[in-house]
Structure formats: structure tokens, C-alpha cells
């Protein structure tokens, strides 16, 4: 118990600028042009799909969830977004689109506004953590791209 407390203190001390401690600090991913012959070098991260996969892996998830019709960021959501922010700050050439979604049980117009509210809440938080605003765009899909019942979400999608 005491050891755990010390560990937390150490980790918090390691990352004083971030509000939320991360247990794994992401390593910088090199972008390497693929070799046309021979074995590829490690690590090889090329193309938008590979970068997206890396983003999801390092940030834990590209998706965060909300309750009710709110745009409130829960503690787990803030932790995921902090990890997303770390990755985005290390990939300052990347631009992301934050897609806000709403509950399928919402009405159509209100759902579009709730999705916009969520995308904006995520954008503001990422800016607060140091991500340049120029890397962040937002869109709302309302309830038009429902992914099952757990549709109250915001997805950070790398676009380029």
C-alpha cells in the first residue's frame, strides 16, 4: 500500500505538467519510409491506417463516452484524452477530426447539437492540455452514425 502511494507520487512528479498521470509514457514513433527490399526497419509506421492504429494503441482508445445528453468529461475520459493529447503533441503534423455523437433515443435536431457539444468539449480539453488548436477540427453526426446503444461518444479521428 505504501509502495503504491510512493509510485503514484513518483509518476505524478515525472509528469508535473499533465493534470492526469499516465502509467505508460508513449514513446515517439518514427515515420520511416518503407524499404523496398529486405527486412523492414523497426518500428515501421507508415500511412494513415498505421498511424491511426498507433494512436489508438498509445492513447488507449480513440473514443470517449458520455452520460445523458451531456458534454461532461468523466475521469476515465480525461485520462484517455490526456493520452490522446500526448500523442498529438508528439505528432504536430497530424490533424484530427473530433466526431461528436448522440444517443439514438434523442430527437434528430437536438442530437446534432449534443454531438457538437461533445466534440467541442473534447476539443477544448485537448487545447487545455497543450494541443495546438490548428490540429483540431470538429463535426457532429448527431444520431446518424449510431454504433449500437452506446452511441453517446466522441471519436478522435486522424484525418491527415
Amino acid at each position, binding site marked *: 500500500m505504501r509502495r503504491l502511494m510512493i509510485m503514484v507520487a513518483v509518476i505524478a512528479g515525472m509528469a508535473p505538467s499533465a493534470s492526469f498521470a499516465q502509467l505508460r509514457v508513449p514513446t515517439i514513433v518514427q515515420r520511416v519510409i518503407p524499404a523496398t527490399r529486405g527486412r523492414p526497419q523497426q518500428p515501421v509506421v507508415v500511412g494513415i491506417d498505421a498511424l491511426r492504429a498507433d494512436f489508438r494503441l498509445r492513447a488507449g482508445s480513440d473514443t470517449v463516452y458520455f452520460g445523458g445528453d451531456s458534454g461532461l468529461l468523466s475521469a476515465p475520459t480525461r485520462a484517455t484524452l490526456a493520452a490522446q493529447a500526448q500523442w498529438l503533441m508528439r505528432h504536430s503534423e497530424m490533424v484530427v477530426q473530433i466526431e461528436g455523437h448522440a444517443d439514438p433515443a434523442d*430527437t434528430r*435536431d437536438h442530437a446534432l447539437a449534443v454531438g457538437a*457539444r461533445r466534440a467541442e468539449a473534447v476539443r477544448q480539453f485537448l487545447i487545455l492540455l497543450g494541443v495546438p488548436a490548428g490540429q483540431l477540427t470538429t463535426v457532429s453526426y448527431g444520431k446518424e452514425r449510431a454504433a449500437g446503444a452506446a452511441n453517446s461518444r466522441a471519436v478522435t479521428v486522424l484525418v491527415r
Partner: protein
Amino acid sequence: MKLRMTALIVAAMFAAPLAAQHTVPVIAVPPLATPEDKETSAGSTLSLAWQATQLIASDLQSAADVMALSPDQKDFYSYPEVTAPTHSRWRAKGAKALLTGFVQARPDGRLAVGCYVYDVEKGRELGRTGFVVPAGEWRRAAHKCSGLAYQSLTGAPGIFDTRIAYVAKTGLGTAQVARVAVMDGDGLNHDYVTTGDTLVLTPRLSPNGERLAFVSFTGGKPNVRVMDLASNDQRPLVPGDAISFSPRYSPDGSRILFSMTQAGNTDIYVVNATGGFPQRLTSAPGIDTSASFSPDGSRILFESDRSGFQQLYIMNANGSDQRRITFGGGWYAAPEWSPDGERVAFVRRGSDGLRVGVMKVDGSDLQILTSGPRDEGPSWAVSSRELLFQRGEGFGRSSIYRVGVNGGQPRKVTVPQDAGDPDWSGARD
């Protein structure tokens, strides 16, 4: 392609409606007369008169609050009898009212169509109307005759010469293609007016059915666009890349209400239908959307979650004097003011899902009309007697339904594919 209809007799002096009583009035619709059977580009006048008669009867039979006797070719009457019917003959058939009329070929190739409605119990005329139309457009003249009969009998405008817009959906999930479709009120002249390469939502017709405002994901974000249905020309309603949605025309078609999101906050704006600088009408923190004008354009109903949950509010057309009107259980959304000004249609969002209802504009006399659990997007008929709405059927599928506000089960509207977001225009010019 605006239809040109020249009113022969603008008349229509409406007497008190026949159906102040609670019984459904019965109207006889014998075959329209023709003074002389002549060929036209759309067929002989005798044949057109019979087709128009059947269309009028079919229109009136589709309404829940009048009853039309089926036309019978044996019930012909002479051309002079169009304006001098033998009232007792129709009383004997159990009719309270009678529609007569004529179809006449003109030397210029067009048709003259006239209609007269009589109270056969009192032996007096209730109204008349007439048009000169190109032969191929006889259906619209017949729909206008149906409208005259309906208004004479019920006091409410007829819904027959109207247009309906909706979102036509094919495929499911990410492969779904959504297009705006427009059709006549009776389902004919069905046409797709967007191509399906971008997601579209909530088409809203101008009151005369000639223009359309809708939400498109053109450019990647939801934004309101307006379209001229004659030319299919379209443009963004307002410049800029802010998220905008929920358009609705003013009753005179000159202005458009819409919602726009800035910094996550959604407010209601109004802009001239021809463009220009939008005026912001709300500024409360929270989501203000789904705005709808009163028939005289002086007030606006809208929904807001400023109290924490969606409720209906009313304000003046300039945004002043915002007051909440719903206080019952559940949440209230998507209001539309009825064309007669008496009521508001809405969606109630509760533990039983989404249901469509109506109430008085002061929030009293609330009735839930549909069983849910995924019914939304109510749109009034110009008669203020019926609504169209969308019913979600699960698995991403949906259809549009029609329901009377004075009772009765919703009826599915037949269209070629899945459908949502219906909107019903006013009477066409």
C-alpha cells in the same frame, strides 16, 4: 417548373362549414360534365372528366372527416345542371352535399375546369372554383376541386394540392444512401432532388412547395442548404463553416429559422430566405433548436435544454419574452406550430421512447397520438387535422406515417423505399 393556373373564378365565398355537427358529412361526387366531347393532348374531355371525378372522390375518401360516395357513371347530369342541380336527387342518395363540375376543351388546347359545391339539404351553393390549365395538368385542377369540397364541408383548407418532402433511404449502416425526395400530396410525381453522395437530413418545404431548405453534410459538416425545386439550383443558407441545422420557413416564405452551433453552444437564428446576414434570436447557455413560426409570423416556438432537459418555449419573433410552456413529466422536443395557430405538434421523450403528440400553444390539453417507441419529426397538414411523422422500425430502418389529430390509428404512407423526416407543404399557388 411552376404550374400556371389561371383562376377563372377566384370566388369561393365560404358559408359556415357543414360539419359543425359531429357527424361526418357525406358528399356525392357524380361524374363531371363536359359540354362537348373533344379530343385534347391528354385524351378526350369525356374521359378526362371521368378521371378527374375519380381523383376528386379518391382525395376526399382519403380524408378522415368527410365521406365521399363512390362515383357512378350512371349518375351523369347534363351540362346546364352543373350550376342548377336537382337537390332532391342527391338527398335521396343520403348525401348532405354535392360536387358538380365540368371539363371543357378550349380552342387554345388548354382545359377549362370548374367545380361547384352545394348543400343539398338547404338547396344552396357553398362555393365554386375554376381554372384554365394545360391539358396535361388536369390533375392539379381536380385536386383544387377536392380542396374546395373539403373546405366547404369542414372549414379547414384541403390538403390535396400540396407537396411532401422526405429523406429516402436505401441500404443500411455505413452503406446507407440518403436522398431528399419530393412528391405530390397524393404520392404522385415522386422525384429525388439530391444525388445521394452526401448525407442529408430534415428537408423543409417553403409554404408553396416551390423551394426546399435541408441539412447536408456537403463539406463534411452538417449545414443548411436551400434549393429551388424548379431548377435544382442550391446554395448554402449562410456562409462560413459553422455547424447549422433545423431549418424552417416562415409562413410567408420570406424568412428561414435555423440553428447554429458556435463553441459548442447552439442558438436559434433567422435569415432572409434570399440570403443576407443572420440575426441571432437566443443566447442562453444550452441547446436552443427546432424553431417554428406562428402562422402570423409574430411568434416562435422552440425547444431548449437550458433548464437541464428539453422543454418547449415560446418567444416573440425578435427573440424577446422567452417563456417555457411545458412543465409535465418527460421531455418535449421538435415543436411545429399548426397552420390554424391553435396547436403545437411535438415529440415527447420519455422512458417509453419517442412519441408524437399535440397540445394547445399554452401547454394545456396535451394528447399523445402515437405508440412509439421511435416516433418523431411531426409535420402538420395544411388542414391542421393531420400530421406526418417518422416511425423508426429498428435496425436503422424507418417509414413515414400519417395520423389524424382527432383520433384514429396512424397509417403508413407508401413510398418506394425506407423514409424519414417528412415535411408537408401548404397549398400550392
